[in-house]
């Protein structure tokens, strides 16, 4: 078996048994990255640091002092600040930004011995569902439709992280999820990914998009690998007052394979008009798998579902316009002199530094927060957000977890939706409600469409109950037995 095909759990076993070294794993990963350049997965490569970190891991193995993730290559979404390594948020305005500090999530991974494998591409400031808004160009999905050589989007915003795992370059990667940015690309690329409960991972050192929604999480090929990575990433951080001051449970041991007696809800309102038959079919199949495994599956109601996206497209741009006010051409990032006075410099810097989608969202956010509109839009959205969260609370009085499709379609072709913001936003129809409520959600590969493209199922759980999410996701994974791999068309013979 190729080293790149191993899961994180298998790598850990092999490293401990000294079957291969961290340096060998790192070299195999770097070689795979070099072969796959055409997909535009990385914004910044870190070959030297990768090899240096792997060498340190090997020294710890030699001394018998290995840490839990020692030698495991992990690609970082380029939204996590990495000390001394350029961090761009896929934006022109940060394209020369080299942080002097390390994000808490990445620091936690390095503390446990993980090896940095480059900074992955994303939608600019994580605003997008297709990775097409990156200043550094779009990422290509390793998967292609059968008999069709056109580029497919990897989903977004964590598109590079999803592609790097699906293409078997890295066994795992970090993502962030504000409205679906871990789960939707995971589904589009045929891998697993979890957005934990808001607050489970520290947001310190992550370039901010919408602070009440942003949450970091792992992406990997198996449910267990996601649990292993989240174990290291999660935890209270004094530097983020919204991080949860709670013990981190042992996520991997939650994957027992036993869901007998568990109650699973199927939200009736998620069966939206025009849902493709294949999506409905994979959802029904998922429900049957859970029934077969001994769970009790029943319909539940989340009546506010249809208002989640409109709520999100008030709350997220409002918070973004406020967060992105910091890019002023003075303290860090790009500066464009413009007309020469201070306001002209601000306007020129921000006009040139932000891409089209980011400008659009800043303007929407500014509008809904502006005098005279604040109550009608922002405050109203915050009230509806309470109602959406209440829907979930009520549902979780009846069931232990919910099962839904992750995305309303398979991966679409590049350019297919970029002309119409609303049709792009609709991609997140199944992921956004959980983001607003702050609850954990995980996407698991469930099968292939008739076009040969991956489809994902989403498991949602109660706040801080990632354990049940992992338990249910593990059963789905086992039943789906998803073993398909993308044809490596990017490898030249």
């Amino acid at each position: 078996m190729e080293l790149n095909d191993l899961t994180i759990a298998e790598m850990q076993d092999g490293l401990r048994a000294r079957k291969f070294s961290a340096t060998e794993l790192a070299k195999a990963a770097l070689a795979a990255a070099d072969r796959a350049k055409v997909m535009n997965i990385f914004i910044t490569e870190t070959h030297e640091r990768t090899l240096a970190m792997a060498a340190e891991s090997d020294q710890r193995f030699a001394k018998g002092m290995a840490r839990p993730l020692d030698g495991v290559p992990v690609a970082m979404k380029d939204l996590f600040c990495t000390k001394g390594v350029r961090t761009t948020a896929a934006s022109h305005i940060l394209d020369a930004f080299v942080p002097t500090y390390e994000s808490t999530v990445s620091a936690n991974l390095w503390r446990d011995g993980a090896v940095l494998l480059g900074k992955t591409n994303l939608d600019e400031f994580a605003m997008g569902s297709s990775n097409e808004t990156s200043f550094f160009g779009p990422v290509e999905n390793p998967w292609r439709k059968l008999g069709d050589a056109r580029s497919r989007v990897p989903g977004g915003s964590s598109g590079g992280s999803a592609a790097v795992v699906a293409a078997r370059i890295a066994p795992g990667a970090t993502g962030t999820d504000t409205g679906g940015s871990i789960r939707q690309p995971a589904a589009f690329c045929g891998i697993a990914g979890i957005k934990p409960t808001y607050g489970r991972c520290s947001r310190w050192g992550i370039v901010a998009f919408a602070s009440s929604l942003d949450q970091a999480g792992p992406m990997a090929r198996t449910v267990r690998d996601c649990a292993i990575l989240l174990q290291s990433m999660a935890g209270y951080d004094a530097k983020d007052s919204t991080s949860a001051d709670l013990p981190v449970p042992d996520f991997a041991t939650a994957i027992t394979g036993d869901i007998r007696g568990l109650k699973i809800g199927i939200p009736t309102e998620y069966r939206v008009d025009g849902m493709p038959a294949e999506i409905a079919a994979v959802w029904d199949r998922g429900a049957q798998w859970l029934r077969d495994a001994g769970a009790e599956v029943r319909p539940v109601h989340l009546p506010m579902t249809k208002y989640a996206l409109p709520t999100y497209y008030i709350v997220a741009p409002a918070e973004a316009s406020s967060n992105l006010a910091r890019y002023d051409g003075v303290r860090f990032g790009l500066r464009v002199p413009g007309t020469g006075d201070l306001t002209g410099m601000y306007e020129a810097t921000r006009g040139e530094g932000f891409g089209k989608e980011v400008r659009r969202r800043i303007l929407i956010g500014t509008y809904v927060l502006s005098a005279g509109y604040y109550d009608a839009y922002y405050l109203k959205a915050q009230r509806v957000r309470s109602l959406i969260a209440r829907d979930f609370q009520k549902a979780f009085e009846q069931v232990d977890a919910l099962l839904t499709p992750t995305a309303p379609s398979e991966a679409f072709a590049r350019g297919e939706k970029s002309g119409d913001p609303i049709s792009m936003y609709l991609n997140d129809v199944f992921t956004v409600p959980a983001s607003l409520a702050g609850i954990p959600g995980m996407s698991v590969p469930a099968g292939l469409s008739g076009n040969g493209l991956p489809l994902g199922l989403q498991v949602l759980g109660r706040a801080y109950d990632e354990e049940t999410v992992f338990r249910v996701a593990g059963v789905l994974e086992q039943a789906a037995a998803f073993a398909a791999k993308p044809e490596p068309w990017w490898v030249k013979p």
Partner: protein
Amino acid sequence: MAIDKATVAKIARLARVRVGDAEMTSLAGELSKILTFIEQLDEVDAAGVEPMTSVVQMGLRRRPDGVTDGDKRDDVLKNAPDAMAGFFTVPKVVE
């Protein structure tokens, strides 16, 4: 609600984002569509509902009120596009 070009210009000014004239027209159309989409919320009666301001209600951990960080002037200035003599610089704002 339909947004016209003048409104786009006003909010672009508020947001300190320069927008070209041609883009202003297309943005007026796009923002109008997005606002119409958002205004579905008008159907919801949320009177008396507390606005959600935090995802999970949780008390904050307290710590002694002490200085725990600092002396990082050079770090802070390291990414400034035009730092000088230990300061950020801006275009001249007073005559």
